């Protein structure tokens, strides 16, 4: 019995390398100039999948001998994908992730290296999203769409209470306008919705605007900083000024609010427009009362953009038809044709910046009274400040949501809430706290230039280096030469 167990243990020793079907680095890169043919399976969900499906006929026509199947099965997609990646079998040729999850998956070393074929597109995407797609200078994902933010407002309500949308330039202006509306409407109309469970989303937007971070360039917890505190103080003021309604976002009641005058405005991303059109289905091409203006800045003259949402496409390393898979991704994401088709079909806002130089964005949107909102959303898209997202992002975001929602639901009394949050994150994720001086992080404080490499830019520090066993003094479980990592 003991002999048997020992034999079994010897054969199956844990943790020597990651368990997934071993990835041969030499074949995990996408071949350059290979012939494009064969089947390509794509996993995607929702309207994203629909928009890809609309592209397949043209792609198959351009590349004879290919067949693209877009599977729209969203049931347990994360589970099935992770199981396939661990087992080394069953992953699709192309799959979609939310862009904030990309670093987590890239760190697993199970995605194909796209650098040989994608390097040339680097400058054509906003740095804020491109950053999430690379690790150690190699590219593993391509940004698909972005969610640039702006302020949606109800024209008639603003007009009725004498609020000029062009005069709202900072969040202070916004609060003042909101208080005017609430007072004059006798409390019937609120300025925005901001329930406790929706705080974290707005916090991320404001973090970008103030130049704060959750993780610094070294992957340390940096959520307790003057910038982040400033961002949170805006949220505190928004809620304390009485201009917010607590209706939970994306619920029935919230969606119904688009059609009445209970809420005057919504800071939101470009896809909120899509939600509105869906919820107000009976508008049928007539113009509604909604308009869009630029997002308020934190300080006068500060940035008026942020990014909220968006996806990327990746190729799992186990894909047997990388050339065709890449060709499809390239067509969908790196050509004006592909990106604009998706914009027209499903309102997916292109991350591919050359696609923005199109007259289509200058067209008036009838829903918004003929306002060319496309152009508005495209303004300064390349100036969106980047949030550092490490492979721990999703987990950290979950904790952040819980803690901030709890803080908001209990009166927002703790002045040191971010300190508490930072320490909790540090303990739960087992990461160090960043030192209090933001300058040492190498990140600009709140002005418009994007994150540019200085002494330690994020995409040249592998998260595996930060999180690798050597740093924890644990030699035994060695991660020696994995597909990514020490060859950087």
């Amino acid at each position, binding site marked *: 019995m003991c002999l048997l167990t020992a034999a079994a243990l010897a054969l199956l020793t844990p943790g020597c390398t990651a368990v997934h079907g071993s990835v041969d680095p030499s074949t995990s890169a996408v071949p350059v100039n290979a012939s494009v043919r064969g089947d390509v399976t794509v996993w995607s969900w929702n309207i994203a999948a629909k928009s890809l499906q609309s592209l397949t006929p043209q792609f198959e026509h351009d590349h004879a001998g290919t067949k693209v199947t877009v599977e729209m099965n969203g*049931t347990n997609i994360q589970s099935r994908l992770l199981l*396939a990646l661990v087992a080394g079998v069953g992953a699709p040729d192309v799959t979609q992730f939310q862009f904030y999850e990309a670093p987590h998956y890239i760190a697993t070393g199970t995605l194909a290296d796209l650098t040989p074929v994608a390097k040339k597109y680097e400058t054509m995407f906003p740095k804020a999203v491109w950053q999430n797609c690379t690790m150690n200078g190699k590219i593993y994902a391509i940004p698909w769409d972005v969610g640039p933010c702006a302020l949606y407002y109800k024209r008639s309500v603003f007009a009725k209470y004498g609020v000029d949308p062009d005069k709202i330039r900072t969040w202070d202006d916004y609060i003042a306008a909101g208080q005017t509306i609430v007072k004059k409407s006798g409390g019937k109309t609120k300025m925005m919705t901001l329930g406790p469970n929706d705080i974290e989303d707005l916090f991320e937007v404001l973090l970008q605007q103030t130049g704060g971070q959750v993780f610094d360039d070294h992957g340390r917890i940096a959520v307790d900083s003057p910038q982040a505190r400033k961002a949170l103080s805006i949220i505190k003021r928004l809620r304390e000024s009485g201009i917010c309604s607590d209706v939970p976002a994306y619920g029935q009641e919230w969606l119904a609010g688009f059609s009445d005058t209970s809420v005057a405005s919504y800071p939101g991303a470009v896809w909120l427009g899509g939600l509105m059109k869906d919820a107000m289905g009976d508008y049928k091409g007539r113009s509604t009362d909604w308009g869009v203006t630029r997002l308020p800045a934190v300080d006068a003259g500060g940035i008026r953009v942020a990014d909220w949402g968006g996806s990327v496409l990746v190729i799992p390393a186990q894909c047997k038809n990388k050339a065709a898979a890449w060709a499809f991704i390239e067509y969908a994401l790196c050509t004006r044709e592909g990106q604009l088709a998706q914009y027209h079909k499903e309102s997916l806002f292109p991350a591919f910046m050359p696609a923005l130089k199109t007259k289509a964005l200058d067209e008036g949107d009838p829903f918004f009274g003929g306002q060319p909102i496309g152009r508005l959303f495209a303004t300064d898209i390349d100036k969106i400040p980047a949030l550092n997202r490490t492979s721990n992002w999703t987990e950290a975001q979950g904790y952040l949501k819980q803690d901030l929602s709890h803080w908001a639901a209990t009166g927002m009394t703790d002045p040191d809430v971010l300190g508490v949050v930072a320490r909790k994150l540090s303990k739960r994720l087992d990461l160090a706290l960043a030192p209090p001086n933001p300058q040492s992080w190498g990140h600009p404080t709140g002005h418009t230039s994007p994150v540019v490499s200085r002494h330690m830019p994020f995409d040249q520090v592998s998260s595996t280096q930060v999180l690798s066993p050597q740093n924890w003094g644990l030699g035994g479980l060695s991660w020696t030469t994995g597909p990514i990592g020490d060859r950087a």
Partner: protein
Amino acid sequence: MIAERTTKPSTEPLTPAVSTSTRRSRIRVERALAYVGLTICAVIFIFPLFWLLVSAFKTPSQIFANPPVWMPHPLSTGNFTELWREANPLRAFVNSVVISAGSVFLTLFLCSLAGYAFAKFPEAPGHKWLYGFVLGTMMIPSAVTLIPSFLVLVKLHWVNTYLAMIVPGAVGAFGIFWMRQYIAAHVPDDLIAAARIDGCGEFGIYLRVVLPIVRPALAALGIMQLIGSWNNLMWAFVVLRTKDMFTLPIVIYLLQGEMRTPYGMLMAGGLLTTLPLVIAFLIFQKQFIAGITAGAVKE
């Protein structure tokens, strides 16, 4: 535990307090009520299966009709044609059959072999300890071993193969216990001794003497294993990764999409998945229940 029994004769009159005819009619009423209750329950228990059967032949709009359509008038086979087109139920059916058959065969063979060993080799050293160990393993909940078992399969490159579904659960302690018990109770020692004297090898004894006698126990164990294997969802979900390897339950489950649930196809596929087992049960019902009952009484 038993009611206290007095030694003196009971002081209760032997004649009942009420007249015989009243008592008899009360019994009749009670029994009628019992029949009614049982029948209602039987109907309730069968109803979902009935609903599955008729819904498979309804059009999607009939499935959602209010008031409900109890019996669709032209039996529509649209769900089946759609299922054939969208999924690959034939392949899934084959997979299910192969996996279940393999699982049942392996279990029956290995458990009866081990059961025979434990029942008829009392002098083998360590025999008691080993059997105790086997019984002890029944206490390990599978939830604890789930993740590492999956990782073992990854290392062995067995993920997405029939082996991954058949082998891990093949030899369960319960099966060995079941077979051993039955063999010990029903296979006479002298029969074995005689066969040994005749020079029959142990494996030969197993094949020719033991197996014929333990058929009922094999039937019961086999059916239990068949049900578990055919209906398995969780392990199949974890271990089977490509469409050509999916079993019927997985195909059914994954037909659900995020935007819509195609109930028509689900009912058609569900019928295909459920019918074989129900039919098998109805045919082998006697053996199965006799097996459980006999095994329990023998204790």
